[in-house]
């Protein structure tokens, strides 16, 4: 398999019918087939007649010979055109979440459990129900080496805090949603910039993790091939050197052969570079869909104390994950469950704290 999708169980017939319906076609279903009256524009884009019949894969082989009947099976040109059209334009969907109950207390325990505080102390000063915005960005990744691996990857961001939220996609499926059609949640350029940075920072790590087997397999194969290349050129050099000691060779011939031997390392390097190019992995990342969410949440106001220093922070209780959202490092912008601060009480992740806070240069 080249994609990360497990053996696909998409019902192609159902997919095709939904596609046509969503584009304004009139459908009439029969057994193993559906007659479709395709709008003229769509028919032109799909290079089909206006009245067509799509038939299921099972019936496809016997039905496909007839004119205007299209079997819905992999590799069929019509299916390819439908998928291209359906996936051509990135989609932006917005949803509003509804909760019957949202937790209002017990955040002390949640914070203590969730966050690594090092030597800082935290005191909750107040809570309040608020609304916050999340964005689930679905991105297409394509990892190319001498084979191709592709798939979709979701990232969830809190647009208000800029934090990358883990484990929010799965529980979201159980939450009641409304899909307003009018209001469009627009991200500010700063927010988009932040999302882009976060994807750059975390996407690579997440992809590497997801593709670890693929990466390891490529490394293993590269190592194997490069090793055997080394061995071949080593043996070749040895043979050629041994050949020099043969009797009856003219000086010119010896010189020529020595020159050839001297060229071997360069040739080996070129071949190794070829292998490296063959196996090197390029990962392309491109957003294909976004789900913008507006949801009620609980804002927890707290005071962070380290020695005599104090700082006021606010944390967000996420009713979808039923957990606290991570905080954002002031230095590098990564999201973490670390409430560690520099001397000036700037929230910093552990790595930045070691290097020094970018805001004040302070360390802990």
């Amino acid at each position, binding site marked *: *398999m*080249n*994609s990360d*999708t497990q*053996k*696909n169980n*998409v019902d192609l017939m159902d*997919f095709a019918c*939904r596609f046509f*319906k*969503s584009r304004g076609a009139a459908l009439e279903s029969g057994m193993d087939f559906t007659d479709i009256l395709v709008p003229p524009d769509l028919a032109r884009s799909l290079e089909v007649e206006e009245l067509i019949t799509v038939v299921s894969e099972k019936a496809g082989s016997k039905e496909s010979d007839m004119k205007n009947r299209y079997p819905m099976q*992999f*590799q069929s040109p019509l*299916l390819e055109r439908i*998928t291209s059209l*359906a996936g051509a334009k990135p989609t*932006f*969907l*917005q949803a509003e979440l509804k909760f019957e109950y949202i937790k209002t207390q017990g955040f002390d325990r949640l914070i203590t*459990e*969730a966050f*690594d505080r090092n030597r800082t102390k935290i005191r909750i000063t107040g809570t309040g129900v608020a609304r916050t915005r999340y964005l689930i960005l*679905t991105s297409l990744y*394509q990892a190319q*080496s*001498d*084979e*191709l691996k592709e798939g*979709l990857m979701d990232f969830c961001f809190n647009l208000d805090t800029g934090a990358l939220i883990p484990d929010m996609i799965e529980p979201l499926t159980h939450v009641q949603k409304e*899909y307003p*059609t009018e209001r469009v949640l*627009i991200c500010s*350029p700063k*927010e*988009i910039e932040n999302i*882009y940075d976060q994807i*750059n920072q975390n*996407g690579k790590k997440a*992809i590497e993790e997801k593709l670890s087997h693929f990466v390891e397999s*490529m*490394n293993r194969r590269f190592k194997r091939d490069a*090793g*055997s*290349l080394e061995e*071949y*050129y080593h*043996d070749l050099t040895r*043979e050629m050197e041994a050949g020099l000691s043969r009797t009856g060779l003219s000086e010119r011939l010896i010189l020529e052969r020595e020159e050839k031997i001297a060229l071997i390392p360069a040739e080996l390097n*070129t071949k190794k570079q070829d292998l*490296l*190019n*063959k*196996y090197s992995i*390029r*990962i392309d*990342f*491109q*957003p294909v*869909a976004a789900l913008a969410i507006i949801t009620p949440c609980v804002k927890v106001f707290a005071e962070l104390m380290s020695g005599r220093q104090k700082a006021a922070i606010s944390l967000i209780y996420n009713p979808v994950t039923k957990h606290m959202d991570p905080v954002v490092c002031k230095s590098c912008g990564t999201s973490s469950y670390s409430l560690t601060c520099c001397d000036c009480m700037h929230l910093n992740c552990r*790595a930045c704290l070691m290097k020094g806070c970018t805001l004040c240069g302070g360390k802990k």
Partner: protein
Amino acid sequence: MAASGTDRKKQKRKAKQKQVKAERTKQIEKEKGWDYYDEAHYFFDAGNTDKAVKAMQKALKALPNEADVIHLLGYIGSRTSNLAMELDAIERLEKIGQLTDDIQIDRVILLLSHSKYEECLMRAKQVLQNFPTLDIKNKRKTLARIKEIKDYSERMMAYEHRKKKIPKETIPSDQNPVGKKDILPKTLKPEVVSKPKQPSLTPPVIRPVPEIPRIPLTFHTDKPSFFKVLSTPEPAGTEQYELLLASHDIRFTESFENLICLSSLTLIQSFWYQEETAKKVLKQYRGRALLSDEVGLGKTIEALIILSEYIKRGMVKTGLILTPSPLVSQWKEEMISKFNLDVPSTDDPKFRSGEEAFWNQPFVISSINQAKSAKNMEYITAREYDIIIVDEAHHLKNRTTQNWKLVNVLKKRFILLLTATPVENNLMELYNLITLLKPGQLETATAFKEKFMKRGDPTDPQNRSVLRGLLSQVMIRNTRSLAGIHIPPRFARTIRIEPTKAETQFYERLQTLILSLNEQKQGKARMAIKNLLAQAGSSPKAVEHTLTAMLEKQDYIFDHEQEIRAVKNLCRTTLDTPKNMTLLKLIQATRDKIIVFVKYRGTVEHLVEFLEWNHISFSLFHGSLTNLEKDAAIDAFKNHTKVLVTTEIGGEGRNMQFCSQMVNYDLPWNPMKIEQRIGRIHRIGQEKEVQIYNFCAAGSIEDYILDILDRKINMFEMVIGEIDMILGRISGEKEFSDMVCDIWLNSKTNEERDASFAGLGMKLKRAKAGYEKTRELDGKLFGDTYEL
């Protein structure tokens, strides 16, 4: 009871809370561990090994079973030559069951290089015990090496044991010239008494294992697309959103299991074995393969499916296709017509040798001769290609040639070599081809000769099963029996037509004009002359078109204008040619449908007039028709008309197997073009014997060509593709049509002309015999072993 129930609930809750807390603590510990891991990485990269080691230890404490952490430990150990650390890492990997077979081998070598003979011996024994189950490359070599290491370790241990037993005082200083303080007991062998000696076996040559870098991983995010999606969103419905995600899911399943390029092929339908071959090359051979199908099975199509698939998946963005000169235009045509790939070639009028911009284009089709010329080679070898395809790769059989050296030096990720005859005279030819694909696959030339070649017969291999194993990793050779291609035979008949007086006069005047043009502007007017000669073989009407154009454009006229006008007038007086009458008789004599192939538009017009005049129902098929008109023409021919008049352009891919008779009204000088015409009806799906009628005027160039192709080498009964192989052997880089034209123009007398054509015929005959011998040899050598 109630109270105790509440207590139980409380206890249960507390236990759960405790559990959750423990889990969270564990999680935090883990996170800290990863922080330490990052820290170790950071410090090591910064060159602070001490801090890196400290952080490493902390990371290991928190994450004792994480393979990544252990790998880093091993890495730091190897970079700092800290054996203990490396061994610790290996042991940890073993504990968590992540010790790979390769690392087991590395451990033995590592122990040996640090003179830990006892442990080395133990590990070597362990490896040898499990050797059959190990999944490693070069098993045979590794086995020999490990055995050598084991023996050496045993000897070294025995030697050290003996060394301990011998008191130091017994070593006389004068017998220790190299300063070594050890010696074997005197009683062992008299000759070793005089000088101290290491164990009799020299240590195995353990080459330093070269540092092989990890493959680079680059990450690209398209910033504008992020902004496009998020800054100006067009809200969509849930259905649209879900359909989009589903469409990607469907697309992902289209792995190499399904070839996504097939749906966009035009004018051809690929055969199952071509598709399977492409999949095998993509999945198993990973883009480096020798495609050696028997002649006529469509290696070009296989290579182009592979190329298109790579292009469609975005895995190939640059490529170079190298072919013998006569095949450049054929590749170009196949790529554009069947795969919709418009690739510049060295046959293009715009091409100028030594022009850097041409070679910098993403894809290029080049004759191998152009590519290896000093002017161009510099540009080709300076850049990197994603894929190289070499057609008729047997031209690379000799590694001392410039052809081989060129392909060897090209920077490439994928390479496909296409030849039906990988071995012509010597197995070393095969070795040289495979070495281009995968250097070292068949070891060095000397080793290959020793292992696989018998003395006395360079074409008969020994150790066949080993060789088969190695070749089957890079080579595919499908046979006709696998492909299941059974087409009825075809028969050709040459119909020699005596010209009328008027025609003879016309030919003679034209001949004089052509010779005069040739003499006056040798070389420059060659194309025009060649065209005129070929058109004369087609019809006077075709000649008239060209002469009119020459007069209008004042091309190559010099002081011949009057003569050109005279010949042009003669064209008009020769309308009802005997050729037409012969065609009419043929059409009337048969009940079957018949395809008439014509090369020139002028001839088509002339023929159309003639057929209409004689009330013959016919369809017309040529390149200027739209696709719909073409379909309609074929449809009409299938259902209503008896005759299809067609030019060579555009007929490929359309099923015409319902017809089994064809007429070459005029004859292309390029035998491959003739073969293409035949291929329209003599293909899979044809159920009847195919009859080919070749028309020619007695004594014309076409008469000579047919004499060679039909009578001397029986081209019309050969398998499609074989003529390429034969021509490839004689013409080198010169096309057959040019050879014919040269003979015609350069012969001063008829006798000289006859002799030259006879010479060419003999050459072709010899080439055919050579090809048949090679085909037989390759059939014997490879048989059906390398089929899918």
